[in-house]
């Protein structure tokens, strides 16, 4: 029942927010605190004993059940969702927005979708939540985003909707291969997938992979992403980049690799090549960006490329590293966006050539920026290090005949990552102040709180990552 709470709290409070008018902001914050508390409880509980899965009959005619289950990976991602939504709702509390009731209601609804995706143990339910996470974000971006928001968000929506439909076809096909009773449950889908002849596995593999790759996004399905990140309101950008991309990785780990092991082995080299091309490609583009938001967006593509490559390397070490890295990437990218948002508000521009001198005018923000950037490029003693280390050694150990090439090229991506991140830090925090803005306001109390939460996590998990490792290893 506790799992049901994770979905019901944001859902009911989200509906309530729509009617709450000006109080919506506080309703949403309250909701995110409750969800965080429950997700901490689930994660903690998960460490000791199995969380009881729940399951109700739902659509017997097509074999769908309403069933939720949580293993270590799901509990970890729910915890991440809880933390990120708290941070998101702490952000920009003083900024007035148009129609706050709908805004916060939609944010909570997208949280419902995310929690559901991570917990669903039934394919159709998974699909429902997958879409439920998308639709509120579509409205959030189109209504409250930047200047080009409508066209950009629409592209994003049609892209991901197409992917979802492909996934739907694959799931229906798999469910038809079962004996018809609860044919959508995770176990039955896995059994059906494993028993498929290889030819069918190839088709189903690509249907599923394209859907997940669009979400992550993996080169060449990434074209929606930089625009969408740039145009979305920062809070939604955080949800998109810290959580929704994780849906893609999570889905690969839960609904693709175990379901179609043979096809996965067959296509692993292709996918890893695509992912690594993505790392280099995104890093090169990031190097020539002068817009902070786009820079972070491209750096996110690079990070996701590495994670996807590791997911298909097929080694246990990279799998564990992936879980750790999913959590850490969520924290780090949120930190990046927080700082970017603060800087953007203070300088009134996204172009970092027109910034500078942050370290002397607002040293607090500059320190946070430096630490988070270090975490982003995986410096030891930050949380980014342990995850990426495991990913690299995982890729290196993989059975692929090109493992050394993959590893070497991916490592090049890390060096490029350091180049563009540090040059951005240098231009924003140090050097001449080119902005014309003389006095930069220090962090407000809520901003400080949000940043402190993230910095504490970055340092703590960098120095002592064991609790996280323990959590994600639970089956």
């Amino acid at each position: 029942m506790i799992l049901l709470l994770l979905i019901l709290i944001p859902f009911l409070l989200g509906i309530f927010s729509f009617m709450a008018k000006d109080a919506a902001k506080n309703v949403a914050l309250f909701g995110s605190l409750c969800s965080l508390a429950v997700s901490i409880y689930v994660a903690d509980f998960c460490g000791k004993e199995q969380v009881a899965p729940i399951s109700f009959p739902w659509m017997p005619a097509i074999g769908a059940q309403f069933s939720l289950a949580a293993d270590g990976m799901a509990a970890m991602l729910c915890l991440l969702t809880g933390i990120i939504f708290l941070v998101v709702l702490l952000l920009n509390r003083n900024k007035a927005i148009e129609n706050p009731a709908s805004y916060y209601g939609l944010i909570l609804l997208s949280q419902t979708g995310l929690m559901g995706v991570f917990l669903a143990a039934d394919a159709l339910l998974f699909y429902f939540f997958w879409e439920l996470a998308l639709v509120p974000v579509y409205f959030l971006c189109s209504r409250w985003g930047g200047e080009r928001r409508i066209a950009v968000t629409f592209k994003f929506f049609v892209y991901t909707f197409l992917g979802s439909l492909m996934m739907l076809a694959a799931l229906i096909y798999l469910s038809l291969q079962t004996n018809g009773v609860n044919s959508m449950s995770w176990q039955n889908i896995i059994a059906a997938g494993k028993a498929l002849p290889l030819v069918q596995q190839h088709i189903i593999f690509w249907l599923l992979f394209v859907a997940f790759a669009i979400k992550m996004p993996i080169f060449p399905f990434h074209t929606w992403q930089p625009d969408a990140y740039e145009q979305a309101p920062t809070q939604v950008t955080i949800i998109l980049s810290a959580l929704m991309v994780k849906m893609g990785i999570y889905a690969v780990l839960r609904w693709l690799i175990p379901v179609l092991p043979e096809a996965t082995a067959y296509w692993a080299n292709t996918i890893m090549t695509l992912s690594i091309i993505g790392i280099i490609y995104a890093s090169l583009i990031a190097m020539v960006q002068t817009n902070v938001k786009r820079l972070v967006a491209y750096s996110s593509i690079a990070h996701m490329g590495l994670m996807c490559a590791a997911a298909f390397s097929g080694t246990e070490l990279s799998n564990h590293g992936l879980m750790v890295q999913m959590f850490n990437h969520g924290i780090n990218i949120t930190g990046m966006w927080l700082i970017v948002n603060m800087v953007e508000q203070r300088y009134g521009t996204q172009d970092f050539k027109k910034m500078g001198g942050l370290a002397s005018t607002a040293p607090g923000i500059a320190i946070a920026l430096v630490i988070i950037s270090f975490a982003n490029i995986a410096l030891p003693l930050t949380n980014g290090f342990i995850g990426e280390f495991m990913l690299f050694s995982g890729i290196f150990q993989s059975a692929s005949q090109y493992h050394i090439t993959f590893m070497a090229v991916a490592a090049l991506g890390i060096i490029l990552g350091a180049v563009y991140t540090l040059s951005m830090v240098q231009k924003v925090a140090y050097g001449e102040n080119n902005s014309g803005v003389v006095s930069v306001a220090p962090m407000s109390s809520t901003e400080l709180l949000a940043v402190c939460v993230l910095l504490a996590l970055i340092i703590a998990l960098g120095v002592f990552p064991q609790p996280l490792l323990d959590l994600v290893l639970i089956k």
Partner: protein
Amino acid sequence: MKAIIAATVLGIIMMYAGFMVKEKKTILSIATLLFVLLLGVNVWELMTAKAGVVETLFHYQLVISPFSIWFNTLMTAGTLLYVLLMGNDIINVGKNVGEYFALFFFILVGVYLLSSFNNMLIMFIGIEILSIPQYILAGSDKRNLKSSEASLKYFLMGAFSTGILLMGITLIYGATGEFNISSFSFIQMQHINPLALTGLLFLIISFSFKVSAAPMHFWTPDVYDGSPTPFTAFMATIGKAAAFMGFLRLFHTSFASISGSWTMVLAIITAATLFVGNITAVFQQSVKRMLAYSSIAQAGFMLFAVVSVSAMAWQGLIVYAVAYTIATLGMFAVLLKLKDYTFDGFNGLAKKEPFLAFVATIFVFSLTGIPLTAGFMAKYMMLQAAMTQGNLMWLVIFALLMAAVSAYYYFRVIIAMYFKQGDTEMTGEICITDKILLGFTALLVLLIGIAPQILLPKGI
């Protein structure tokens, strides 16, 4: 049988009521009452029907199964919902209001025949009873040239396709010596008779006309655009669903054993319909015309039921027909509240009438096939039915691509309502009854989306 008699009698009563009563509102009340009565008769027939037992009439010319009664009940309920939603617009179309409602009753007789015929001649009669009142309805706005054009076009095209239908029936009769659809025996023939194959092709062509499948769809946009909007809503929903029922019934009962010889033709027609409907809808500027093309596109999805010869097809068609009918009726009901039928006419609706915009969003979601709405479950069942067929995977993937295209033009409505600025001009005040009815319709969409099994009770 009770429902067929009741619909005929009530239709005649309605006609006379039209002569006697002058006040339009009173006629609407009488019509609503009679539709409730007809629904009652259907429900009564449904209650007395036993699972698995069929009622045969006139030497097996009509075979009324619980399934057909259930379909009839749903279609009657759909008509009632339609009259409730758009009654005030129907009575404003022209002068002789009683006639319109009488015609609806006669159309329902056609629907009932198409869901239970067992003889190709009864099928022919059913199609004619279904079509002729629609020709009249299309031209009911007599002073409007476009409406007259629509009616004439519809009539000529319809008559043409009826001719082809008759030719097909004749050829099939020539090949088999039978009108009775359940007793064709193609299996015993060594080779399928060329007469039968030609007949089959003619039947496919003429039904494609009726359900507006490409390349026989050319009449649809003009007729739907030219007809008075409330009647377009009816033709695009109940009229189309019934034609599909006839199509499915004929092909799955009589030609299932030789499905190898026609499924590929129909699969290609399906793909063409999806392509033409969706791609052309993208370029429309008027929402009414967009809905006309969208009805072609949705017909493409409904054709999946005919293409895939399986038990799931029947259930799928029920769910699809109901889901599509409800959402389209709702969308037309919203459209009727606006003065300007272009996409720009929807600009800023969310600010002015948040409730109207909200229900319209749900209808659009359903038409697109977003989960938690009826449209999703409908598409789901169709895809499932097609995939059991095995060799139709290419069609499934093509249909999904087209469904993504459909998101493009459906979501233009949402973009206009929510994200664009503008002052929507309304035709009048939206009263609380309208809101309740629209809210109820939207609720139905969500309910079917969450629990589609309510449309598929046990024993039908």
